[in-house]
């Protein structure tokens, strides 16, 4: 993604990646795994190769194909063996086969919630429960995961899964030059990132400290960097213990705690600690100059050492985002990803049913019929007896389609030409979404209330007809317009779609919910209505249509958690581009 900033950074990232490979190979299940963000290429291959080399103990490594079905992931009926034996025979799934080793998940950014939940359950319990096809078993599956993430910036593997993995690596900044092996053999604790190298050399493990101290400093550091989940400090402590064990020590020392914090906590940072206050209520004399001053660290409190190490280890890209305050601590999930009964989309399994009303799943049907063959004793050899009970139909999941809801301020204050521009943008978007199978809806608010001018549609004809009849003029019932947009957006989300609300207004409300005029009350109601968008985590974009950017509109966008776009010279083309940029990743 970003060009390699400087050679040392790439080399440092690679060293860190190798260290992760060592730790992960030593205890895959304890580490949970790693999210490896990298484009496919020689660097990623080299890392995977390093992993195999480090894993000399013969731990299994399995690759999980994208879109794997439950019978292969968890386990299921072994069809040939069942037919041969005349009784149900269990075939172990991939997770059970990888017990004690690693599972590589390619294209993890595309992983769906259901598969992620199965993997997460396996990480939590160290085993896989099979209750399928008339079989019940619990098999050990103490696995670690390698999530290969090739996503763009706004794509990520499911958060539920990421949270359980100790490590996050980004190899995009590493070039081929960086991965040439050193002439000197690496020790068990390879070189640290350039910034912290000198300090690490100075403070190896000769300040033992009690483990309790490390627990506290890891917790404090996690809090200082805005890492909310408690899994993070627990994983960090586990990694510190693992690093100590690899060094042949029974208790982790400072070097181990610092390394664990760098590897586990730094990539999860959502904010930078306050430079003055320091973490929590700890009295810290040296806190203010902590990041800069690396010489006098012999007397510094332990928390500071860990804190400074994490600060130094935060990936440069993330650091820039943190400084700009752009990282949201919680990403709203794609709810409603599971659509209703569909006949197209990606198959997600099968269930008993009538193939006349859905598509027959031949393999599942054969699997259901297999154990019965001896009992049914087909009259002719080589023919399989299938009964109605055996029939299985395929279940599909549709990709959730996105719907753009335009909520247009059609009042007198918003000037008629804005309305014309909004109409133009809707038409342009519609033509475009016709190709993408997205939908558009239009809500207009003016006078005393809001109307759904155009219910969610893909139809060009209907859209044009609805738009043509859109009236303008009157007061600005902003709250009513927001309520209508919210209700429609929630309905779409319940139906499995991804709504995006585009609000075009100047933010100057003057009609309340009751339909009565009154600027102050109408403004308050509009802000309250806007906050509901934030609560529901709806994607929204506010286009300020006033000829000069309005403070009221900006505050409204803030309350909605919407992107604010002052567009004094809004035209159809620029509006369309802004909407495309704000659309949620479907």
């Amino acid at each position, binding site marked *: 993604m970003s060009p390699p900033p400087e050679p040392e950074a790439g080399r440092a990232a690679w060293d860190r990646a190798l260290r992760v490979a060592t730790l992960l190979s030593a205890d895959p299940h304890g580490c949970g795994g790693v999210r490896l963000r990298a484009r496919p290429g020689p660097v990623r291959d080299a890392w995977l190769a390093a992993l195999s080399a480090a894993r000399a103990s013969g731990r299994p490594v399995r690759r999980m194909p994208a879109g794997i079905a439950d019978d292969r992931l968890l386990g299921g009926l072994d069809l040939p063996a069942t037919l041969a034996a005349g009784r149900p025979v269990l075939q172990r799934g991939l997770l059970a086969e990888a017990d004690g080793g690693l599972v590589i998940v390619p294209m993890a950014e595309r992983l769906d919630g259901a598969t992620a939940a199965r993997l*997460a359950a396996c990480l*939590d319990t160290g085993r896989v429960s099979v209750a*399928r096809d008339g079989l019940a078993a619990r098999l050990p599956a103490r696995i670690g995961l390698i999530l290969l993430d090739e996503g763009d910036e706004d794509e990520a593997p499911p958060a539920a899964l990421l949270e359980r993995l100790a490590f996050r690596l980004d190899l995009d900044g590493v070039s081929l030059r960086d991965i040439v092996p050193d002439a000197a053999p690496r020790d068990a604790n390879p070189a640290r990132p350039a910034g912290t190298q000198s300090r690490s050399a100075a403070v190896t493990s000769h300040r033992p400290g009690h483990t309790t101290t490390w*627990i506290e400093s890891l917790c404090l550091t996690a809090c200082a960097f805005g890492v909310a989940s408690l899994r993070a400090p627990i994983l960090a402590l586990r990694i510190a213990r693992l690093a100590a064990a690899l060094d042949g020590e029974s208790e982790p020392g400072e070097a181990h705690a610092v390394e664990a914090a760098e590897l586990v906590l730094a990539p999860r940072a959502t904010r930078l600690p306050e430079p003055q206050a320091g973490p929590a209520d700890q009295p810290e004399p040296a806190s203010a100059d902590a990041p800069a001053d690396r010489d006098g660290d012999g007397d510094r409190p332990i928390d500071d050492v860990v804190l400074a190490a994490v600060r130094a280890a935060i990936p440069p890209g993330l650091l820039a985002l943190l400084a700009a305050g752009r990282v949201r601590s919680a990403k709203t999930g794609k709810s409603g990803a599971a659509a209703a009964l569909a006949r197209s989309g990606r198959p997600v399994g099968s269930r008993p049913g009538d193939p006349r009303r859905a598509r027959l799943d031949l393999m599942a049907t054969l699997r259901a019929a297999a154990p019965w063959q001896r009992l049914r004793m087909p009259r002719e050899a080589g023919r399989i007896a299938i009964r109605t*009970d055996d029939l299985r139909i395929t279940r599909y999941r549709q990709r959730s389609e996105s719907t753009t809801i335009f909520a247009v301020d059609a009042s007198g204050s918003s000037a008629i030409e804005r309305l014309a521009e909004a109409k133009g943008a809707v038409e342009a978007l519609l033509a475009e979404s016709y190709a993408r199978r997205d939908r558009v809806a239009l809500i207009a608010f003016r006078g005393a209330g809001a109307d759904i001018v155009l219910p969610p549609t893909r139809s060009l004809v209907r859209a044009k007809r609805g738009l043509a009849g859109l009236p303008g003029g009157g007061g600005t019932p902003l709250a009513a317009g927001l309520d209508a947009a919210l209700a429609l957006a929630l309905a779409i989300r319940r139906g499995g779609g991804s709504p995006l609300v585009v609000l075009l207004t100047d933010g100057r409300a003057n009609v309340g919910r009751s339909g009565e005029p009154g600027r102050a009350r109408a403004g308050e109601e509009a802000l309250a209505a806007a906050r509901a968008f934030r609560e529901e985590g709806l994607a929204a974009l506010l286009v300020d249509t006033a000829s000069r950017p309005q403070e009221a509109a900006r505050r409204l966008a803030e309350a909605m958690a919407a992107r604010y776009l002052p567009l004094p010279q809004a035209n159809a083309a620029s509006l369309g581009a802004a909407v495309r940029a704000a659309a949620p990743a479907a």
Partner: protein
Amino acid sequence: MTLDERSAPMPLSEPETGEGGIVRLPPRAARKPSPRPRTSLPEAAPVFPFSAIVGQDEMKRALLIAAVDPSVGGVLALGDRGTGKSTAIRALAALLPPMKAVAGCPYSCDPAGSASACPHCAAGSPRHGRLVPIPVVDLPLGATEDRVVGALDLERALTAGIKAFEPGLLARANRGFLYIDEVNLLEDHLVDLLLDVAASGVNTVEREGLSLRHPARFVLVGSGNPEEGELRPQLLDRFGLAVEVTTPTDIPTRIEVVRRRDAFERDPGGFAAAQAGAEKALRRRITAARARLAEVTVPDASLEAAARLCLALGTDGLRGELTLIRAARALAALEGEESVGLAQIRGVAPSALRHRLRRNPLDEAGSTARVARAVAEVLA
């Protein structure tokens, strides 16, 4: 409060009694035709002890209430990741006191109950009672319908030509708990099925030439993260209590959580042994509360307060009010009170009511805040 049980050594050989009361079936070949093998009490399985869970008082209280009075109707724990939802529920299995059940009955019938309730007991076999752990059955993700409902026992059908019913997860959960992790990811057709059984307490099987009914009364316990998807309203309503679980933000609590988890991971056996006293005391409290439950009175003043509270919040139907009273009574029993006072109603109101409120787009406050506000106004 803790997290996953990743580092606990797992019993890998079957038959096993893992996680307290969860009874695993041995391999089929080793199994005698009908009786379900059981161990009499949970072994010292290394699960994180319930009493060692830091904080999360609302969730723990809701689970204890459900253990005292199953008619409360299930517990739903929704909230942040990594807050120990699954840990608490799995820990409950090890905590629950054993119950009396008919020996060999696959549905764990109560020997004191009616003999006609299940196919096994109705067959007229002698009904000896024995102590068994209260079942806490995990519904695994990806479970298929036949294993949930039960199906024809293939093995016996194929080898002996006998048409026999092999009970499923619903049968095993009878008189116990059915736990669904990631409840919002459950397949729709399984949700429908579970709702039907949970409502009637009876599992009706009509498949593969079998036609039978068996009792399936269980406490539905669900956990999940709201970010993964919304729950269908029908399923939401089916849970008696709904608790919100949030990550603790104060540093000492967080440190204590990590410390206990670390201690448990390093020495599960020793950690459990150190907590054995607390576990025993809690178990005794549950047993005592159960015995006392029928004697706890609900004065008119408390009934009226509950009614006013539900009215003020505009909850649908009577279910909310009934759950509120039942939960308050169970809480009173747990606390050793003789009658239900306002304190108990106040204590359980958020759990009993927050998931029954109508969505109000005009009110941006969360449902928890709305319940708290109503409690402050009505029960002042």
